[in-house]
């Protein structure tokens, strides 16, 4: 094996691949070959670095230079300058938005400074398609350790760590394992829930694309603990790269005897199969997921019985999500006490969030539980895009709530988010600014849950549709204050009566926006006005007579013939005829068209 003096790590995550990172890798390799340095310098395709806003990323080891926004045509310069001559390509370095200084090493960037990467520990560091690189970073040591002790000891370790399910429910993982282990039955199953469905969330995909072995190792540990010899990964078929890397990792693990009949000579038998999901959001709910794997309709059933007692094919089944599993090996390597020392009283460890929306640093981050929203949004996220004002952050995916300025200093953990009317969910975090209309935001999320409801229980099937319809009515200026009361009552009833987690949380965006942005609802209903000017039906276009030059551009552009006026005279919009398309606003060169 050649001993490389330098490594160029290039992100091979889905986002960066979409920005031609595959081509960057090819170009870098060509340039290195042309420079005759193939024996000294290698190009490694890694998983996601998390800093997607600045991708594609190329990181140079050993000097930790972190190149951002790299294009295939930059490869030549990186090799000729940095690799050959040792001179950094300054124009590709990250520029600190506050100081405008170039930062070379990622650990000095605000985006990374407050992060603590446990689940994402190997993401961006290793080649996910080479198990040796995982093993080199202590991979499978935890499994070896566990196999030397009893299952009960290992369960105790997980319990002691305080790890809670990262898929959204927050159920204590060790306790879940214990229940499954105590559940009678010869045949048991370990299921990895990789049916990540929250819009904008991609932490599970990223882990599977960047570090699939951590999940395989954890599933084997879980199998040993509960007495299962079979693991199933339920993964969205829309994640082809994650599937491919998982398959490669599984094959390599089998070749190394880390999966199979006699793992590490211990006599413990465990193997994994992949099951594909067709992309139904509700199949993230564990009973629905299990039914989908069984070939039945993907819809939840009443619990109890819990999967730990009667799950896949009626056998005791332990379901954990990808991120939960990714935490497991570290707990055994560094000890449960170490893990439990991170986080808040009831929420231990870290949480991965997919930071998105109107924020400067879009990407995947991992922070200790207890980090405040302010730290996440401003320190890591780099604040709001375009210097606009922060308005709200929606956490927990489509069923989460919208939190406001008053929540910015809330330490993030399961209980605080729930108390604030939102939830942890699987870790979506969408930031909104002053231009976002909160009624429209609530409607948007309801449209999602209406589409994704399985239709089994009446409150979710019909209730969410009605919520959406009322919200639509309000955004069209046709709502009444009675509608607002009904909206609240209906939301509460749906939460109170729906069968599964989807319906029990789907009204959160409605209730939280009513609670936190009541005035905005009233403005839509009473004043027939959308403060953020987002609701088209409520926009009022007008022409400022002082600014209008009478150029007639707007009148010619208006498809409804709603603008009248003589040449070189101020024009007027007939609001009755106006269809609020905004064509006049676009055409006007004198900023004379205003929107209310």
């Amino acid at each position, binding site marked *: 094996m050649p001993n490389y003096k330098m490594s160029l790590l290039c992100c091979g995550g889905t986002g960066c691949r979409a920005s031609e990172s595959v081509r960057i890798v090819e170009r870098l390799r060509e340039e290195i070959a042309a420079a005759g340095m193939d024996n000294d310098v290698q190009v490694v395709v890694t998983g996601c670095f998390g800093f997607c806003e600045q991708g594609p990323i190329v990181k140079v080891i050993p000097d930790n230079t972190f190149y951002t926004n790299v294009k295939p045509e930059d490869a030549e310069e990186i090799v000729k300058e940095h690799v050959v001559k040792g001179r950094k390509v300054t124009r590709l370095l990250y520029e600190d938005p506050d100081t405008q200084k170039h930062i070379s090493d990622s650990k000095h960037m605000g985006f990374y400074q407050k992060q603590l990467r446990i689940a994402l520990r190997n993401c961006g560091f290793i080649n996910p398609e080479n198990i040796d690189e995982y093993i080199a970073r202590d991979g499978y040591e935890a499994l070896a350790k566990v196999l030397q002790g009893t299952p009960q000891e290992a369960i105790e370790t997980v319990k002691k760590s305080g790890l809670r399910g990262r898929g959204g429910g927050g159920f204590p993982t060790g306790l879940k394992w214990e229940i499954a282990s105590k559940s009678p039955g010869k045949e048991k199953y370990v299921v990895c829930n990789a049916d990540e469905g929250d819009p904008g969330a991609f932490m599970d995909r990223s882990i599977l694309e960047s570090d699939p072995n951590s999940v395989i190792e954890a599933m084997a540990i879980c199998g040993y603990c509960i007495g299962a010899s079979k693991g199933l990964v339920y993964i969205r078929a829309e994640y082809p790269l994650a599937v491919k890397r998982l398959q490669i990792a599984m094959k390599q693990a089998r070749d190394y005897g880390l999966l199979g009949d006699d793992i590490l000579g211990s006599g413990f038998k465990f193997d994994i199969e992949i099951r594909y999901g067709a992309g*139904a959001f509700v199949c993230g709910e564990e009973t629905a997921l299990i039914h989908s794997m069984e070939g039945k*309709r993907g*819809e939840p*059933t*009443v619990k*109890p019985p819990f999967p730990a007692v009667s799950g896949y094919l009626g056998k005791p089944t332990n379901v954990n999500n990808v991120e939960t599993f990714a935490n497991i090996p570290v707990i055994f390597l560094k000890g449960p006490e170490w893990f439990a020392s991170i986080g808040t009283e009831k929420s231990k460890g870290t949480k991965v969030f997919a930071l998105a929306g109107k924020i400067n640093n879009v990407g995947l981050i991992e922070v200790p539980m207890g980090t405040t929203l302010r730290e996440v949004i401003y320190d890591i996220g780099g604040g709001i895009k375009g210097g606009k004002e922060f308005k709200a952050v929606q956490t927990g995916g489509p069923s989460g709530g919208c939190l406001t300025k008053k929540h910015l200093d809330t330490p993030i953990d399961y209980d605080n988010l729930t108390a604030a009317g939102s939830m942890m969910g699987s870790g979506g975090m969408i930031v909104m600014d002053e231009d976002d209309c909160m009624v429209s935001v609530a409607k948007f999320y309801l449209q999602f849950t*209406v*589409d*994704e*409801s*399985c*239709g*089994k*229980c*009446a*409150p979710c*099937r*019909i*209730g*969410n*549709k*009605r919520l959406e*319809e*009322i919200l639509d*009515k309000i955004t069209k200026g*046709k709502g009444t204050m009675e*509608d607002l009361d*009904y909206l609240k*009552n*209906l939301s509460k*009833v749906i*939460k*109170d*009566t*729906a*069968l599964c987690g989807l319906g*029990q949380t789907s009204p959160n965006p409605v209730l939280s926006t009513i609670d936190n942005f009541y005035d905005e609802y009233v403005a839509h209903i009473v004043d027939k006005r959308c403060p953020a000017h987002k609701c088209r039906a409520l926009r009022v276009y007008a022409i400022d007579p002082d600014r209008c030059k009478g150029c007639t551009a707007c009148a010619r552009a208006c498809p409804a013939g709603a603008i009248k006026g003589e040449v070189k005279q101020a024009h007027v919009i007939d609001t009755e005829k106006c269809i609020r398309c905004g064509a006049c606003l676009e055409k006007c060169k004198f900023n004379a068209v205003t929107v209310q």
Partner: protein
Amino acid sequence: MDKIKLTIDNREVEVENGTTIFQAARQMGIDIPALCYMKLDNLGVENRPGGCRICVVEVEGRRNLAPSCSTVCTPGMVVHTHTMRVINARRTVLELILSDHPKDCLICPKNGRCELQDLAARLGIREIHSVENAAVSTYKKDTSPSLKRDMDKCVMCRRCETMCNDVQSVGALSAVNRGFMAVVAPAFEQRLVDSNCTFCGQCVAVCPTGALTEVDNTGKIIQALMDPTKKVIVQTAPAVRAALGEEFGMEPGTLVTGKMVAALRRLGFDEVFDTDFAADLTIMEEGSELLDRLGRYLQGDKSVKLPILTSCCPAWVNFFEHNYPDMLDVPSSAKSPQQMFGAIAKSYFAEKIGVDRKDLVVVSVMPCLAKKYECQRDEFKVDGNPDVDYSISTRELASLIKSANIDFLSLPDEDFDAPLGESTGAAVIFGATGGVIEAAVRTAYELYTGKKLDRIDFNELRGLEGIRHATIDFNGLPVNIGIAHTLGNARKLLDGIRAGMYNFHAIEIMACPGGCIGGAGQPFHHGDSSVIKARMDAIYREDAGKALRKSHENPYIIKLYEEFLGKPLSEKAHHLLHTHYFDKHD
């Protein structure tokens, strides 16, 4: 079993461990409303998807409301079934369901018998909070020879799915689509006729609303009755007389044979005959076929197909045509009693009275919806003219009686007409699971052994157990009998035979729970399976009260063979009374 104590509505109750809140409440006289939940106690059928959320209750210490139908009691649990929170939730959810349901109750086939309508009345819903232009889910209507689907009225209770999949193992119906458009339908939203539906109609029997109903033939009957050029005769199946009274408010299990005959006569039928006559005929043919196969088998003929399977039930025939096409030569080739009656009516009887078969209209009153399909099968037509023109259900007959200004309760008891109205007790018990095979045994025993039976009641063949078996001693020859009711049990039995688990000589299969008395054309049981039990008791009561209780003793049957058919399994009998089956496997 352990007992546990809990409190419901401030009263303590002790229940068996594993009892649901819904059941516990019932035990103490608290009747929690429900819509999707349905349990047929003595048939082992339960539908508990927890989908309608009408039965929710408040459980202290629980974050959200609990569906009482599927929440098991725990010790010390404190439950409230009637708090403001519960009332509000229940009404709001019901309003939601109603908001996506057509409001054409007045002209709905389920008007007055709809569980959703009852629930709305019970909860006193007077208005529905509605959004202008609120969406309603609409679907393509589907009609088959037996069943109609109007899924705009589906409330996703999933009862039909439970019957079709769990009970019948047919699998024609399942939930399709997502969210607001979710509905129960055949795969790819095929039409029922293109699916593997057997038309057993058990989906109709349990549908709480008007989403699934039977094809209504009452209009055609009235037209035929009013047509002076037609001679219209009627046959009534054994199970009808044990259930028709329910439609007029009589206790389940009340036998109304005489009133039924009187009503049919007042409706204007020219002759009121009995399918029971044809049931006796069926026994002659099927019993002889059993003896024939058994005899050849005992003589070492290995080509003989045993066990012989009954073929009276049209849904069962459809089922094996779809699912067991390799076994088409195993069931008896004897037609069902309905079709035997039709064949004899339009040959023997038509000749006797000198009426052309085209001018003779044969109507059947059946507890069954598959019979509507059966009488339309091509092999049961002569030059396009069906042996049985129209089949109506018990419910449709009640509706005809009501619409014809007949006060059913005050009718006198009248007798069937001769010659196709005479029957024995053996024919009556066709209506209950095990009855056909018991009737066959009564005749086959006597024909085989040449001896008189000491006892006529074969209690070992009776009951509601899903799969039953018994060995009957035919004078030293042990004859192994198997019985299954519901198609799911039939499948188990057949798969067991294929796997070599059983060694039966004869098997009776009925598609509906309890046999024809639980047929899909019977008055709705609304989830109360004691109704089916009561009808069963009535059937056996009728049998016990009959002077003649063995099919081969029916004097008109004897006469029919003498005058017309020759003997059982004769060429003429084969031509008129036997059929063949088709491979309908996709």
